[in-house]
């Protein structure tokens, strides 16, 4: 082992041990099925918000944003802005009613609201699809990071992450994962903040050269917050805004966290704290992008994903540089672990209710056993795919997961919460239109490499047309099947919107 890999190796081992230790410690609090799925709904806003932040800040946030900013400039700032704004949209439209609905998962919400097994089944398929689409790049990213940090073959990363996630999720469920995730938010923030401070001091010592002037070609496009290519660039940027602003509420691992709040009011407060935590974190990646423009110009064209990992060593020599490298490696690894854990919990929850919890012949698994079996399926499938097909683009797949979530669950949640007239037929039609539309775009984008022309642009960033199409389909089909509005819809709406302090019958 060369000395280059020592800090990365130490960092990965420490993060893994800390994650397992906290998960085991949290195990003492996990007793019931309710603990496993939703931590018995007693997580306070501060802890819950840290956990949401820890789970949400994936490799795309920790590594991807800085690299994209370095290569493409200010239009890539829309990713962190959109990922944060998604929580504002979620706060004002969804947070409190979703919590008050009293459902465990998205399919539970759909079934309770619309009284239809068909909608439930479709939602379960979508949760698993979106979850796997999002898990895949996490496992791949872990492979790439371990390759860069400790020279391991690319299959080691997915294997380590999958094993740690399985141990934690399978043994303690949501209760113990909550502590792990909260710890990992603060770890990620520290791992990006401390090196950034040191690097900024080095930069100031060098006379604070301005990254937006001189260095490299195309200084003006670098400060243009808009895609290139006139109308196409404008479309891409707005489509990205639609996907990220509206997609957050439909991500399975985000939604499942809201059920762990004690009540609607706490759900709102949690979301506000999340906004603050994400805002604080997202100030940092652009700093790395900007510094990279001065100190790591050759990374802009090749391997910009590695910018955050490489920059400390490029700017600081000696032992300090090694320590900082270890720190960012630890943060990146924490990002893979926490996002994968959150997604695995969400997917395992759905699988255990709709697949592994079913009766097979005369045999039926108990609640917790079914959850564990679900966790195994949830983790093993995407881990295997990432090892078998390691060449699918990391940042792209995450963006596409947002587009699919925005085109399916966002219309369902919005109309389900705010419009009495939604019918099961309307919901199914809308989910199919949004899911198939954005799904075809995803498939097309993953198999081709074409990126110019309107067809490529429209399919590469589908949200701007697929979200309105799904929404319109839901409304029109619901109107056409008006006679089949569920009879309990009125009651359910009352429950969604009435504050807990008002003494109503809630059944």
């Amino acid at each position, binding site marked *: 082992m060369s000395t280059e890999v020592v800090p990365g190796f130490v960092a990965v081992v420490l993060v893994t041990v800390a994650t397992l230790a906290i998960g085991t410690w949290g195990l003492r*609090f996990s007793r019931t099925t309710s603990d496993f799925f939703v931590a018995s709904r007693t997580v306070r806003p501060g802890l819950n918000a840290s956990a949401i932040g820890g789970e949400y800040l994936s490799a795309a946030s920790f590594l991807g944003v800085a690299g994209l900013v370095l290569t493409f400039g*200010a239009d890539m*700032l*829309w990713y962190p*802005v959109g990922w*944060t*704004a998604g*929580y*504002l*949209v979620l*706060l*004002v*439209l969804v947070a*409190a009613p979703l919590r008050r609905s009293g459902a465990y998962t998205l399919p539970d919400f759909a079934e309770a609201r619309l009284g239809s097994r068909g909608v439930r089944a479709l939602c379960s398929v979508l949760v698993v699809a979106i979850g796997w689409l999002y898990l895949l790049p996490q496992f791949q990213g872990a492979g790439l990071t371990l390759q860069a940090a400790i020279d391991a073959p690319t299959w080691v990363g997915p294997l380590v992450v999958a094993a740690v996630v399985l141990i934690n999720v399978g043994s303690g469920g949501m209760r113990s994962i909550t502590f792990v995730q909260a710890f990992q938010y603060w770890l990620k923030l520290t791992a990006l903040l401390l090196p950034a401070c040191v690097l900024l001091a080095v930069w100031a010592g060098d006379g604070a050269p*301005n990254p*937006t*002037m001189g260095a490299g070609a195309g200084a*003006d*496009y670098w*400060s*243009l*917050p*808009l895609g290139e290519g*006139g109308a196409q*660039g*404008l479309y891409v*940027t*707005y489509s990205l*805004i639609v996907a990220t602003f509206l997609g957050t509420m439909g991500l399975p691992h985000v939604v499942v966290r809201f059920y762990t709040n004690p009540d609607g*009011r706490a759900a*709102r*407060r949690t*979301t*506000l704290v999340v*906004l*603050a935590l*994400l*805002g*604080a974190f*997202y*100030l940092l990646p*652009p700093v790395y992008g*900007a510094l990279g423009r001065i100190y790591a110009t050759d990374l802009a064209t090749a391997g910009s994903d590695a910018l955050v990992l490489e920059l400390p060593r490029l700017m600081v020599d000696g032992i300090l540089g090694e320590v900082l490298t270890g720190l960012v490696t630890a943060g990146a690894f924490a990002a893979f672990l926490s996002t994968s854990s959150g997604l695995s919990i969400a997917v395992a929850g759905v699988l255990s209710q709709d697949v592994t919890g079913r009766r097979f012949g005369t045999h039926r698994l108990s609640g917790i056993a079914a959850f564990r079996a679900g966790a195994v399926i949830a983790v093993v499938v995407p881990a295997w795919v990432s090892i078998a097909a390691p060449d699918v683009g990391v940042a792209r797949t995450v963006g596409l997961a947002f587009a699919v979530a925005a085109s399916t669950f966002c219309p369902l949640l919005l109309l389900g919460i*705010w419009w009495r007239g939604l019918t099961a037929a309307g919901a199914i039609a809308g989910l199919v239109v949004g899911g198939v539309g954005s799904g075809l775009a995803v498939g097309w984008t993953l198999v081709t490499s074409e990126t110019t022309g309107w067809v490529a642009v429209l399919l590469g960033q589908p949200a701007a047309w697929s979200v309105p199409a799904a929404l319109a389909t839901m409304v029109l089909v619901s109107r056409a099947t008006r006679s089949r509005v569920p009879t309990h819809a*009125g*009651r359910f*709406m*009352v429950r969604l*919107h*009435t*504050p807990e*302090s*008002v*003494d*109503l*019958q809630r059944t």
Partner: protein
Amino acid sequence: MRERVRVTGPPRRRAPTTHRSGTREIDAGTELGRVYMESLLGEQLRLALRILGLLAATVGILPLAFHLVPGLAEVRLGPMPLSWLLLGFLVYPWMLTLGWLYIRRSEANERDFATLVEEVER
């Protein structure tokens, strides 16, 4: 978790609240109860749309503005380009402010609603 739980009986001297007509109207699904609920729902939805409108008018408008006025990309405040200042920094405290405003107003709406349905009984 080992947590000490205090077990208490119901308060002894409690006003007889058998007649909660506001909430009863809603529970029974009468026309009046429906009006109560519609008013809360409409109020909350209008508030949400106002906040989102503010977000769209301030943040959502930026790509269009930079598209229509390309010169904006060269505007600088001190050494920093305007686009970076807006999207890299200011947008986060602004969104936090919007969220805080929303929470204040939505909780006020819910309090008003609670008073309304409970006042009817007297």
